[in-house]
């Protein structure tokens, strides 16, 4: 899916269609109708599935968010906006929002620059480049659940690999309670997230870097540009479309983070690593307060929707325009 956003200079927007011959207007209309019917025919199954499995649940969640509803039968106890006012009074949910913001900021400030640095490094000619690329990408292939179990063991206080290794090199002081310490749990979680996801972003950047024509860098070199100048003025601007999409994926990922947290801490200790999705799960599937849980999901939906639309409108516009015009060109 992401690859469609990536600028691919080799294929480009395709060759322009030949000018239509005069007097073929009627044939063209008929062809257009046939085209349209074919398109509808092909899309109908997907559309029905999309309506039933995606659109309807969204609308239903929106509806249920205005009820006190335990999940049995149909919602009947209408409470107006009470679920939403309760939500924004709940310190846990407000904490979720704060932690979400924290993860977004940390991802953008640390994880993505790190991924970029690794990508630039592994874009150089060097021995064993493919091996490194594969190694760094490998964590992304692992499922979130396995990652969670794995790091739960690594960071087990006292007995875990992390503490043992630190103890072994005489740094016992650095060891700690990791996921069990309310003040350290987010940092530990972010560490695991970075381990898991930087390889993915690195791969995106590598793909972007490979599509930058070498002539440009060479030209800059001939003009006397140093390594930093070449990176700053040639590589970075040409990598911008990739960076934009990577930021987008990273933010959306932070908003909907669930599996990793659920497996490692279940949101604990004492809600210090809880995310919106975890809170929603707690209320919907443990407390059976499905109306309230729907309100949480509606807010999550709203946040992602606003972010996604704003980001596409203001940041991704340039990148997407190419894509849409290309498609329209093909449709003629």
């Amino acid at each position, binding site marked *: 899916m992401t690859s469609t956003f990536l600028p691919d200079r080799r294929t480009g927007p395709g060759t322009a269609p030949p000018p239509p011959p005069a007097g073929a207007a009627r044939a063209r209309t008929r062809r257009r109708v046939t085209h349209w019917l074919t398109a509808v025919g092909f899309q109908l199954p997907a559309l029905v599935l999309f309506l039933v*499995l995606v659109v309807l*649940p969204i609308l239903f*969640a929106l509806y249920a968010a205005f009820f006190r509803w*335990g999940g049995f039968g149909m919602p009947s106890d209408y409470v107006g906006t009470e679920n939403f006012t309760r939500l924004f009074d709940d310190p846990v949910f407000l904490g979720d929002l704060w932690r979400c913001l924290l993860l977004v900021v940390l991802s953008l400030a640390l994880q993505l620059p790190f991924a970029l640095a690794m990508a630039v490094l592994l874009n150089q000619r060097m021995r064993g480049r493919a091996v490194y690329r594969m190694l760094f990408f490998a964590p992304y292939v692992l499922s979130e659940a396995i990652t969670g179990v794995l790091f739960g063991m690594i960071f087990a206080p006292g007995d875990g690999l992390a503490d043992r290794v630190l103890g072994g090199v005489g740094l016992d002081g650095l060891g700690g309670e*990791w996921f069990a310490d309310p003040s350290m749990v987010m940092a530990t979680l972010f560490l695991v997230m970075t381990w898991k996801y930087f390889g993915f972003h690195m791969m995106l950047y590598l793909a972007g870097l490979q599509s930058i024509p070498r002539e440009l860098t060479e030209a800059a070199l001939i003009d006397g540009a140093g390594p930093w100048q070449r990176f700053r003025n040639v590589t970075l601007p040409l990598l911008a479309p990739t960076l934009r999409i990577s930021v987008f994926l990273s933010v959306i990922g932070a908003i909907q983070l669930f599996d990793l947290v659920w497996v490692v801490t279940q949101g*604990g200790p004492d809600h210090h690593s809880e995310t919106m999705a975890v809170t929603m799960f707690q209320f919907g599937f443990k407390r059976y307060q499905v109306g309230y849980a729907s309100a949480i999901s509606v807010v999550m939906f709203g946040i*992602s929707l606003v972010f996604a639309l704003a980001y596409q409108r203001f940041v991704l516009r340039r990148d997407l325009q190419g894509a849409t015009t290309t498609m329209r060109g093909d449709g003629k």
Partner: protein
Amino acid sequence: MGDPALSRRGFLAASAAAGLGMTALSGCGGDSDEGSSGITTVEWWNISTTQPTKDVWAALAKKFEAQNPKVKIKIVQLENDAYKSKMTALIASGKLPDIFHTWGGGVLRQQVDAGLVEDLTDRTKEWADGLLPVAKEPYLLDGRLYGIPFDSGMVGFWYNKALFERAGVSTPPTTWNGFLDTVEALKAKNITPIALAGKEKWPGMYYWAYLAMRVGGAEAVQKAAEDKDFTGPAFVRAGQLLKELAGLQPFQKGFLGAAYSDPNGQAAAVGNGKAAMELMGQWAPVVEADAGKGLGDDLGFFPFPAVEGGKGSLTEVFGGANGHALRRDAPQAAVDFLRFFASEATDRELVTKTGVLPVVTAAESALTDPNLTAVQKQLKAATGFQLYLDQAYAPAVGQEVNDSVAALVAGSKSPEQVAESITKTAKEEQ
């Protein structure tokens, strides 16, 4: 895209659908089988994922199939928490497995109120009367029986005799102050006094519930549930006492992140001799030996100590049992299986092989383990009974109890705030 609520929902819907699909498919299988050869497939959902129980149960199912050639038992085993989540999805779908694990109480009541559970009062009358009354208690709702126990039990302290001895504690404490002294004595010898699974929250609730029972008596706890008011002095005092205990830092390193049955969890800490005791139900020895090495003869049991000046007595027990319920309109084969499972022969086998407590009086002689015998004696002499709070109450209230007591132990809620937030949730749930 860009819709996490949706993808999550989609995922859950998909997994629920997958579960349903499986049920539907197996249902089809059963139906078609019935058409050709008259075989009924009974689906049996349980949480016995640990050994030796897992194998013993599978063998029992085979035995039942041998005795009833026209019945096939299909076992679906899920880990405790996964089971609860999965049941939620199934309940929303309106169809439960033929036989499913239950703890009785508020969760069962909710399922009963939704019309999903079979009333067993009449269908099991001729044999269920012979079961131990205290074991049946959790499944009796308004005088009707909705579940059959295969286990009975209570919560108490399981301790390491060797570690207690090393700390100079020769007899287990019977009073709360004596208990605190024991904790101090263990700490003085650099022994972790108590293992607690802070990540899972329910083990912490046991302390608060027992303390409330010891301070106010079992009746006060029952009454609070009826009045939906947990702000009484018994609960606030319970919170204060628990806070005092937590202040001594008696728990293992990193207990806030510890699970119960993990290799690094609460049971393993006691089973491997790294912590001196845990407050846990009758299944504790089995899990200690499964997740850790197990303590063998070093393992001892003592009831939750009495609180000085409290109204509750040592003979009031907190706990509950495990049982099975049937979905509404379950086939007769499922009832037959429950009868088979609660028969004297099966019960004796369960008692000797899987470490549960007998539910049939005749099977009591099979109990040889001194600790479990002590538990059984306590249970039979019980003058009051309180089911686990997170099972006795409606799910939202039960979870709020677990959650706010966990916050109390972690130091972010005061005893008063705990009592208030539980009361608030209880009142909202009407």
